[in-house]
Every structure is written in structure tokens, then in C-alpha cells.
């Protein structure tokens, strides 16, 4: 398999900062507990916190969205499989999708946790 090439670094837009605040404001107590449990595992994946991770995910999906539209895919649909655990990564990806036409499909297979996250408005 060919080695993929990194094509960009992420950028942080003012809107993303708003989204991070949105997450922080709506963290539920049980989510904070979960996040503490997962700190050593989860955060190193994309960054160290929502402040790191949200811009990464947001920017990546914006790039993919733009790419697909350039390729002629009108209003592309995004599906996040596993966005049901109420922890940072999935919240981040969920929020990252907000400006797009997105379907969220939380994974109770992996987590078994009923999620009542911030994007359910």
C-alpha cells in the first residue's frame, strides 16, 4: 500500500473556538468522569483536549467537504459511525459536522452508552 502524504496542517477559525466553548459549556458531569477515565487513551489520538481535537476534525471535514463539491458531489453526506459515546472525540467530530449535511450514527456496539450529547437540540 502506498504511503499517504500529509497535505496540510490544521487551521483554527474563530467559529471553531465557538464550537469548543459550546462543547465545554455542555459537558455533562458523567462525561467529565468518562473523559478522565479515557485521558490516557483518547487524547493522544488527535491532540490533548477538545481545544486541539476539534480544530483538527473540523478542518479535515471541511477539506473533504470542499473536495467533494469540487469533484461534483453536491451537498455531500457525512456519516460518523460510533459517535455515541459522549466523549471528546465524538463530540468533536459531531460538532465538526455542524455546517455540513451530516448524519450521525452513534455506535452502541462499541460503547453501549446512551448518549445525550450537546448536538441533540
Amino acid at each position, binding site marked *: *500500500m502506498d504511503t*499517504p502524504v500529509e497535505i496540510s496542517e490544521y487551521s483554527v477559525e474563530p467559529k471553531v473556538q465557538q464550537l469548543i466553548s459550546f462543547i465545554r459549556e455542555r459537558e455533562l458531569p458523567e462525561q467529565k468522569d468518562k473523559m478522565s477515565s479515557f485521558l490516557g487513551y483518547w487524547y493522544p489520538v488527535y491532540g490533548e483536549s477538545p481545544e486541539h481535537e476539534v480544530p483538527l*476534525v473540523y478542518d479535515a471535514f471541511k477539506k473533504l467537504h470542499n473536495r467533494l463539491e469540487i469533484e461534483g458531489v453536491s451537498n455531500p453526506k457525512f456519516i*460518523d459511525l*460510533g459517535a455515541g459515546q459522549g466523549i471528546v472525540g*465524538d463530540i468533536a467530530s459531531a460538532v465538526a459536522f455542524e455546517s455540513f449535511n451530516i*448524519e450521525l450514527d452513534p455506535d452502541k456496539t462499541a460503547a*453501549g452508552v446512551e448518549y445525550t450529547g450537546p*448536538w441533540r*437540540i
Partner: protein
Amino acid sequence: MNVIPKGSVRHQAGSYYLPEFYKEGKNRLFKYYKINPTTQPNSGGLLAVASGLDLQDSRYETVTAKLDALNRTSALIEGHLIGSDGLLLGDVVYCYPSDILFGFAFIDQMRKIMKPGSLLVLPKENSQVAEAIKTYQMEGFTPQPTINKMLVFKKEI
């Protein structure tokens, strides 16, 4: 502040496996247990904590009951995310694996249900993803340039 437009995101509870892929994944998991009775498969680290599933307990009855409960319904079916052609109605499919069946069923399922030309996005720095790529060689997918620590694969036509 209401930054998420109502209706732009839909939340669908349920498993992300279709029943046939769940069944096959579970079979493969227990074959793994038989061959590796003292070694746990890579679960992504989250399953045990989140679902109460004790990964040190590989007894078939215990694990399968909990997995069956977690996979009682498929979000893909319940959410009408499978088209009449049997393919997933998504242009971009993202998954952060945290699933004990990921290495046994996920890639196979995606290879069979993603529509040609759609993109599969997986975290780059994730041991389950690394193992799956090594196992499946992502046959049926063409690697794309990575974006922000995410691996991107295009489903081949």
C-alpha cells in the same frame, strides 16, 4: 448560543454493524479466543469501561450476551442509511474505532456496503486501525492523502 442548526445532524442509536457482519465478526472473535485463550484482541481500550464488558472474561456466554445486547438493532437499518441497492448512503464515512469487533468485521463490512467513490476516514494514530490495515491491506480501497492525522481511503469503483 445555538451553533448547531436544528436538523443538520441526526442521531441514530444502535449498532453500526448490519446483522450479517455482526454475526461474522462475532464468530471470528471467538475463533480468535480459541486460538489465543490468554490474549485479548485489541478492543480500542474503550469497550470494557463503556459497556461494562470485562475483557479478561473471554467466556463465550458472558461476552456474547453483552455483544448481542449491544447489537440488538442496527443504526444503519433503523436510520434508513442503506439504500435500495444495499449500499451505505454516505459520501464520507468516519469512524473512530473503539469496538472489539473492529478488527474482525468492520473493514469487511465497509468494503461491501460503501458506495464506489465514497471516502472512508479513520484516525491515523490508532492501534486498531493499524492492525486492520495490516490484516486487510485495505483491499478495495485506494489510499488518499492524509488530512490532519486522518487516513482517507477511497472506495474503488
